[in-house]
């Protein structure tokens, strides 16, 4: 087994054995139950033309909006315990390239994220089977949009995972690194797309600059893709937004590699 996979295996097992996974899954289950309860109790799915689309939007929102918060925690916890417990120093003393460690951690994180995706999707499938009429047709329609959901979910999660990790590598003080990770999330998911902020830029500097600033937010990018139900449709119509999300991830991954290779992590 290559070194990268060995690091990935160790990281993956660490994640699965920690109490964190229970909390993360509990977090998703609570969000799922509350969202589904709201949908079913208010008959929101019965009063729309395309209930699967409505459900898909909620599902994608749960995955990306709340999921990216989980990604910040994952990125932070993947490095913080090893830095403070000096395990990283031991690992760096082994005959391993530093980028092997980072790659291993990322592969493990992607595996972990995929498991969470599987569990959440299963919950939604069960929800459809239990609460929505003529489930098979709707279930098939829902299953067909899963690849698109996975792609967008992965792009969101990887970015916030990498940002959080990067903050911890660059900034020695852990609480500040954590703050920066969350701050990035708040800026890109909450602050920038907010009408008060973007609207003010819009009015003062003009619509083009306002749209440009607003377009930097993940929420704005996702909002533009919510209407589509297949990967081809999104890539053809909103390919630029997907490219922007991929570019964010790419830049984040490159920066985390550079920082980890050059930074003294002790």
């Amino acid at each position: 087994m290559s070194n990268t996979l060995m690091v990935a295996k160790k990281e993956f097992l660490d994640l699965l054995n920690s109490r964190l996974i229970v909390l993360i899954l509990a977090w998703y289950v609570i969000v799922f139950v509350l969202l589904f309860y709201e949908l079913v109790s208010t008959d929101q799915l019965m009063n729309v033309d395309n209930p699967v689309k409505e459900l898909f939007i909620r599902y994608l929102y749960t995955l990306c909006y709340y999921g990216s918060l989980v990604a910040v925690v994952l990125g932070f916890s993947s490095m913080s315990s090893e830095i403070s417990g000096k395990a990283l120093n031991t690992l760096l003393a082994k005959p391993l390239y530093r980028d092997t460690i980072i790659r291993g951690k990322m592969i493990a994180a992607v595996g972990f994220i995929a498991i969470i995706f599987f569990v959440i999707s299963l919950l939604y499938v069960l929800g459809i089977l239990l609460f929505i009429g003529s489930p098979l047709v709707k279930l098939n329609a829902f299953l067909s949009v899963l690849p698109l959901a996975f792609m967008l979910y992965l792009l969101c999660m990887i970015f916030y995972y990498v940002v959080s990790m990067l903050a911890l590598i660059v900034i020695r003080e852990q609480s500040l690194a954590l703050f920066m990770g969350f701050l990035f999330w708040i800026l890109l998911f909450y602050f920038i797309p907010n009408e008060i902020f973007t609207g003010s830029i819009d009015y003062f500097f003009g619509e083009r600059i306002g749209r440009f600033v607003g377009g930097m937010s993940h929420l704005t990018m996702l909002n533009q893709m919510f209407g589509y139900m297949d990967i081809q449709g999104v890539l053809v119509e909103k390919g630029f937004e997907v490219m922007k999300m991929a570019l964010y991830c790419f830049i984040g991954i490159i920066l985390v590699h550079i920082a980890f290779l050059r930074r003294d992590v002790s």
Partner: protein
Amino acid sequence: MMPIFMVAKNEFSMLLRNPIVTIFGVLMMVFASVYAMGGSVTFPRFQIGDHDFVFFYVGIGNFYWMLSMFFAFFSMCIGISSIADERSNHTFSVLFTKPLYRRDVLAGKFLGIGIFMLFALVLVFSLLTSFIIIVFGGPSSLAELVLRMGTFAFVLYLSCIFTLGLVMLLGIIFNKAEALVISLAYISFEWLTPTGLIPQSLGDLQIISPMILFVFASCRPGNDLLMTTLPYDIWLANALPFIVLLLAEVVIVTLINCMLFTREAV
């Protein structure tokens, strides 16, 4: 000087040097500047109500929610760095060798952060209000401005202090990563969920939520602090039960913190 005040003074001076505070300050400055720039174009266009109405209801009311959310987030980050961070860094072990009661340590920290939060709130409120006055002109009565903004800041302060107490409690019970996930879940459910899932699901029990108490106390429809047509004393009479309940929650969470911290092996 009493030990509790010595700890509080130390905590306050540590916070002044904390980079989180600097970054938060810069963010608030950017927000205030952008908001004022946009306001310079939009506020004069409002045709509803008189100048005072636009100043309070639009000028101040627009940033009401975002500012409250930012301060909740800020309280969470400071709370995490205050207890969970110090526990994981084993700084508490050093502190416990000093001739101090454990409850003095916790109460001192709480007091120090509390005073700092009040200081920060007053500063940010003054900054934002001054910017609005510069671009749009002040209200006709300075006393009304000080009274209403001071009350708004106080109610928000109570809400922030509750968040702080809760995060400290989580830092006492759980390890850093777990405390972090649960605090984050609390902040996102209370402040970052656009659909307000928890209050809807709880029905009448929503009143126990500190965020709901804060909203009911400050800007409940029909009893809005920023509505200048509503006399201050009538607003206060209606809002007082919610303010008292919020204060009671703060006291309860502080007492629980002191009790648990005194008993727990750190």
